[in-house]
């Protein structure tokens, strides 16, 4: 067609699309007169659909849509000097709660520059925002509560550690003092885990950092001369669930205490090595030392509390303990194999020296 009609008639299909849109939509002329409004718009904002056509935006309902800022933005959009994208306004209606709206507006390009039409989408986000706020509040409350719990646990562990250390200073018996110190090491091991857990997302514990922290704490309290004895930790990138890490940490604690106490008599120098590897659901934890090795047969000492603790924890983890000569020294390997056919050496042994 070569001539421009002087009066515009909107295509019936355009009007039908607007009116039946599921999203609240307004179809406006460039002087902000309403050509059509979707049924969803009228429903959402309580407007009589028959009253709409031909009205100015500011005359809708009881005049609550007469918002100067919105009008100037829509006019700017109509003159193509601005775009309204996710513009937020508050719709205030008499005797009703304020609704938070998100407005998107654009001109409809039908190829005729003189014929400007605006399509305005209005989304009521009041409920969504309130829900998001509630979720944020809940998340924050939970984080605060968790912090508080962790703080209390740390404080409780400090109380136990303080009492154990005071007791250890006061007892006369060397043996009793040793037991109290061991108890103190165990408390500090749990504390290292607690600290690690409080900084790990999702409740899983990254083992390398945790075992390093644990052994650092053990070394700091048990090794008087770091140039004589040291602890070396190596681990792959494994992360395990919190309760598994508790067991692994306590096993390492017992084995390291045992090695530091018995493998290096008479000022020997040496290293305790901890290694953890996993593949799928199989894993191996090894604690080795390059000390004097174990006494065997009749010279073997009776199993102590540490042995009992390790056995119970290994059983918990469905693992098998293997004890071997590390030449020099001793290696304790704890393995967990999901695959059938794994035959562990089940001969009884005592690894406490």
């Amino acid at each position: 067609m070569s001539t421009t009609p002087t009066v515009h008639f909107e295509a019936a299909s355009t009007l039908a699309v607007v009116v039946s849109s599921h999203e609240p939509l307004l179809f406006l002329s460039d002087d902000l007169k309403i050509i059509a409004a979707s049924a969803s718009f009228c429903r959402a904002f309580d407007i009589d659909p028959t009253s709409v056509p031909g009205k100015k935006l500011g005359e809708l309902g009881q005049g609550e849509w007469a918002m100067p800022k919105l009008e100037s933005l829509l006019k700017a959009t109509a003159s193509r000097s601005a775009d309204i994208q996710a513009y937020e306004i508050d719709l205030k209606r008499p005797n009703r709660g304020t609704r938070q709206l998100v407005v998107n507006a654009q001109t409809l390009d039908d190829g005729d520059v003189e014929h400007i039409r605006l399509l305005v989408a209005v989304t009521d986000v009041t409920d969504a925002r309130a829900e998001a706020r509630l979720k944020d509040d809940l998340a924050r409350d939970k984080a605060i509560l968790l912090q508080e719990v962790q703080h209390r646990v740390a404080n409780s562990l400090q109380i136990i550690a303080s009492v154990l250390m005071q007791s250890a200073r006061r007892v006369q018996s060397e043996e009793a003092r040793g037991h109290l110190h061991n108890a103190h090491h165990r408390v500090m091991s749990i504390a290292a885990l607690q600290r690690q857990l409080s900084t790990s997302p999702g409740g899983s514990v990254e083992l390398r950092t945790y075992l390093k922290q644990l052994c650092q704490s053990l070394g700091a309290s048990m090794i008087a001369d770091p140039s004589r004895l040291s602890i070396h930790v190596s681990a792959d990138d494994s992360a395990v669930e919190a309760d598994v890490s508790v067991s692994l940490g306590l096993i390492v604690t017992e084995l390291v205490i045992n090695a530091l106490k018995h493998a290096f008599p008479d000022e020997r120098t040496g290293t305790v090595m901890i290694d953890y590897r996993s593949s799928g659901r199989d894993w191996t934890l090894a604690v080795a030392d390059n000390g004097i090795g174990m006494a065997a047969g009749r010279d073997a000492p009776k199993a102590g509390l540490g042995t009992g603790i390790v056995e119970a924890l290994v059983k918990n983890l469905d693992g098998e303990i293997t004890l071997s000569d590390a030449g020099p020294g001793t290696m304790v390997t704890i393995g967990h194999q999901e695959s059938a056919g794994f035959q562990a050496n089940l001969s009884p042994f005592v690894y406490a020296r």
Partner: protein
Amino acid sequence: MNDPVILVVEDSALIRMGAIDLVLHAGYEALEACDADEAIRILEVRNDIDLVFTDVQMPGTMDGIKLSHYIRDRWPPVKLIVASGATILEESLLPSGSQFFSKPYENHTITDAMARLLLPESSRAPTA
């Protein structure tokens, strides 16, 4: 010369006992306060306190962090060690030169820090 004097500020009686115990065994003189207000009263009447070892969360008008800043402002030479069960404490929240440790602490970690802080400035190793 007299033994260094250390003021322990801690609201939990059992932890305070343990801290006093560790201070005494490290060969220092120990004073105790159960909150910041009591600590300040003691600091105001004694002029021989070398180091304050304080908890963070305590009842009263100030927590350990506020207390450490107050001490740094009013008694700048007093050394500071802060310990807390709160896992993550920004060290930048503390006055410069103070040491932070998380609870539960190893006794000798604290006594090592005390020994380090109580060395005369001149004999301290230069830091980078």
